């Protein structure tokens, strides 16, 4: 059956994402969620265990969790592609997923004959795909309520897999579990009231029989939380507010935001979760939420069994620049930091502040802060009040630095790779000029500025490498464009780094030197997806998959929509 006749795809196509003064609205979604089956018999019946996911870190044939492994290194051990061979990489196939919507996801691969890919995109559309042939096996579209309001597009960044299920967060702040073999709904759990501003866009993660999922709505005055659900039933196991009451003044906690809107990193050995946490609320008017607003804009560590808070490392205290710390954390085992006489597990975080932080995994103590990945101009200066009559462009702007774009880590080279924006913005704080119906964040954020700050180098974004031990910026490749860079990175253990750009290029860099080794133009549309890779022993090829298409934020969202999944291959 052709994809044109796919009812779930049709439903996703009929869903319209409209930007309003209050954010993005999702309209025209189906009344009920739809599964369309094509060839479900082709999916090998082999339940995926937690052990499989743990082992997938060293398994070149698997990509079983959002970050490639629980530690979120986004590093494949498949070794067909090397710096020497990557120049021969070719397009294997292009699949049109059918819905020209947000394409920020990372597909997963379950090894087998054939390998099955689970790929998702906006608006809450997921497919099972024969990854060898590029055939859709089933597809599913979730019925998103029309009163969901989203800050930044109808994003969905990926799914999780365990046993016979695939789990997807839903835009109305829920999690849906589907039968992995049939695409049919098994359970749905709402984690919060979307009418209060909550939503969900990230890939959940599963371990210890639990689905771990967070919260979004940091521009809508919600209170951030993280929640564990029973993977079998969807029942809530525990729930933790990201911020404790005693860290905020009075009722300001009620709209403290500090949402956890990207995937948690799982420490299977110590049964801990390390998660990114976003901006405090409201975004720009700090006077209504005095104090450092602890547990916002940094890394939160929770006990996996109880949800109890262990520590919090803050990157932007009392933030007034929307400096979420959103990118997934990378857990590095037995990490040696010679100049600190440290040899134990470390958590590496790349934030909107443009620094990379290397933190003791046990305590949250900072071991090392890197050189800035991009320019810091007028940074940490209090944004002006409207009556001061002056504009103050600041860098990094509200998109970072490193926003949600997942970094990658190559344990062989000991380098972490990032995608950062280098774009000034202006913000100011006001009450007096509030106009009804206009989005208002305790201030105004302006991304089309009159004058860049003095010293701006005119490069809008960069891809680079940082050494988490020393904090040294090892290499940096400036990327120029009219739009900002989005999407994550992939590294091969052999030393190649892959990423898409806002100009529609897929690039392979030498992980050690930053030299460009291979480039492929997919057209003019931006790439917002994060690449991943696997090896198929049947074809003896290593594949790299990446979703092509933009996503929107603040009117400078990467221009245009696309609906392609590009899969590249190289034969051994």
């Amino acid at each position, binding site marked *: 059956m052709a994809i044109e006749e796919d009812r779930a795809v049709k439903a996703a196509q009929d869903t319209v994402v409209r930007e309003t003064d209050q954010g993005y609205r999702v309209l025209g979604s189906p009344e009920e969620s739809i599964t369309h089956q094509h060839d479900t018999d082709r999916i090998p019946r082999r339940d995926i265990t937690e052990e499989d996911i743990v082992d997938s870190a060293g398994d070149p044939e698997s990509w079983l969790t959002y970050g490639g492994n629980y530690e979120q290194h986004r590093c494949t051990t498949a070794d067909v592609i090397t710096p020497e061979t990557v120049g021969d990489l070719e397009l294997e196939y292009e699949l049109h997923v059918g819905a020209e919507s947000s394409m920020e996801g990372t597909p997963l691969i379950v090894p087998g004959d054939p390998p099955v890919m689970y790929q998702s995109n906006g608006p809450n559309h997921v497919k099972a795909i024969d990854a060898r042939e590029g055939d859709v096996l089933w597809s599913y579209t979730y019925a998103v309520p029309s009163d969901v309001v989203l800050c930044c597009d109808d994003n969905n960044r990926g799914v999780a897999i365990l046993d016979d299920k695939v789990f997807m967060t839903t835009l109305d702040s829920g999690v849906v579990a589907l039968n992995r073999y049939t695409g049919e709904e098994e359970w749905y759990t709402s984690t919060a009231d979307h009418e209060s501003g909550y939503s969900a866009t990230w890939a959940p993660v599963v371990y210890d029989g639990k689905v771990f999922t967070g919260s979004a709505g940091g521009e809508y005055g919600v209170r951030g939380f993280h929640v564990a659900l029973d993977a079998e039933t969807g029942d809530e196991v525990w729930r933790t507010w990201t911020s404790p009451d005693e860290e905020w003044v009075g009722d300001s906690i009620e709209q403290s935001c500090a949402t956890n809107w990207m995937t948690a990193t799982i420490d299977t050995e110590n049964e801990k979760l390390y998660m990114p946490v976003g901006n405090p609320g409201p975004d720009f008017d700090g006077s209504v939420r005095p104090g450092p607003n602890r547990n916002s804009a940094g890394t939160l560590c929770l006990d996996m069994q109880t949800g109890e808070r262990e520590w919090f490392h803050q990157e932007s205290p009392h933030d007034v620049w929307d400096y979420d710390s959103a990118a997934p954390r990378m857990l590095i085992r037995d990490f040696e930091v010679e100049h600190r006489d440290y040899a134990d597990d470390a958590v590496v975080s790349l934030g909107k502040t443009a620094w990379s932080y290397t933190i003791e995994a046990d305590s949250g103590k*900072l071991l090392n802060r890197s050189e800035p990945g991009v320019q810091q101009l007028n*940074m940490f200066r209090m944004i002006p009040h409207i009556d001061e009559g002056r504009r103050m462009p600041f860098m990094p702007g509200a998109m970072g630095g490193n926003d949600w774009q997942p970094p990658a880590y190559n344990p062989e080279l000991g380098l972490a790779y990032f995608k950062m924006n280098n774009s000034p913005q202006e913000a100011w704080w006001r009450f007096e000029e509030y106009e009804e119906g206009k989005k208002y964040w305790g201030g105004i954020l302006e991304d089309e500025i009159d004058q860049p700050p003095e010293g701006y180098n005119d490069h809008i974004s960069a891809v680079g490498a940082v050494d988490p031990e020393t904090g040294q910026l090892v290499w940096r490749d400036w990327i120029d464009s009219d739009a900002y860079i989005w999407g994550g990175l992939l590294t091969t253990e052999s030393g190649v780094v892959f990423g898409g750009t806002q100009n529609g290029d897929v690039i392979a860099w030498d992980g050690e030197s930053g030299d460009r080794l291979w480039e492929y133009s997919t057209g003019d549309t931006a790439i917002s997806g994060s690449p991943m890779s696997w090896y198929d022993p049947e074809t003896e090829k290593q594949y790299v998959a990446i979703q092509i298409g933009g996503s929107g934020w603040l009117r400078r969202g990467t221009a245009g929509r696309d609906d392609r999944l590009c899969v590249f291959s190289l034969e051994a």
Partner: protein
Amino acid sequence: MTRQQITIDGRDELTDALGISRSDVGERPTLSELRRTVETETDPEFASMGEAIRDDMARELDADLLASELSAFEEQIARLPEVRDAGIPEGAEEPETLYREVVQPAWRLYDHLVEAGFFESLEERLPRFTPNHIERTAHELVRLDALSEELDELGFDEREKTVLVMNVVNNNTRLARWVPTKEIPSDVEFDVEHVPPLHKRAMGGALLWVNSMDVHLWQKEVLVTEEILDDGYWDVKAMLAGVDLIARAALDIAEDGAMSDSQLVAALTGGAAIAIVNQEEICKDVYWITEEMRNPTPAR
């Protein structure tokens, strides 16, 4: 500016606000000098605001509790030099309690004021920070008999005492951003219902900053310099002086003490202003550690 220096510009702004001729005081005037020179006329509007607050709160506040906790708090403020000398809290897995100990009695004061509805009364009775209100506050503060002695007891020297008053006068613009909750438009994107009263934000915010110093300094030890610690010492000390002023005013209400009604308002407004201005300073001095400020790393 809140640094401990008294600049010529700062002094001029202060004397202008107090209606004092610049030639009547020295280059770095002391509080006593200012007090001798300033007019002694009481502000009737201030007096009526103060009276209303006294009427609201006289029966709600526990004088014994306030007196004992204030005494304990002031003992803690006097310990600040040894806290500074300790530098960065020690601890293998978590920081020892240094700064948190300093503010423990202050939290008990704060909790009592919250329970008593103290901040709601101030919200209702006091205006927002306008230049005029701030000038009048400074005027009354300078005339507050006990202020200088109390600050002496807390370990403030003459220069520091003047700087505290300058904090109030010379930060009109910054203080104007801190709007009483009742004056925030109801249709802003955040829920005004969840915004605490202004003076609660001032006092609670200051205590939160001090409270988090232990974990902040301990976690960021590799970035922290002696200069950061020195600046933080002053910011903490100044914030706590602001908190102390608010608590003293509350005690005066509970005991029907010696402050005039207008001085009561000055202590409350001035205390809040000092707490606010210096919590904005501690962000820049201690928490927002830029590349230029940071302790260099031996690794690069």
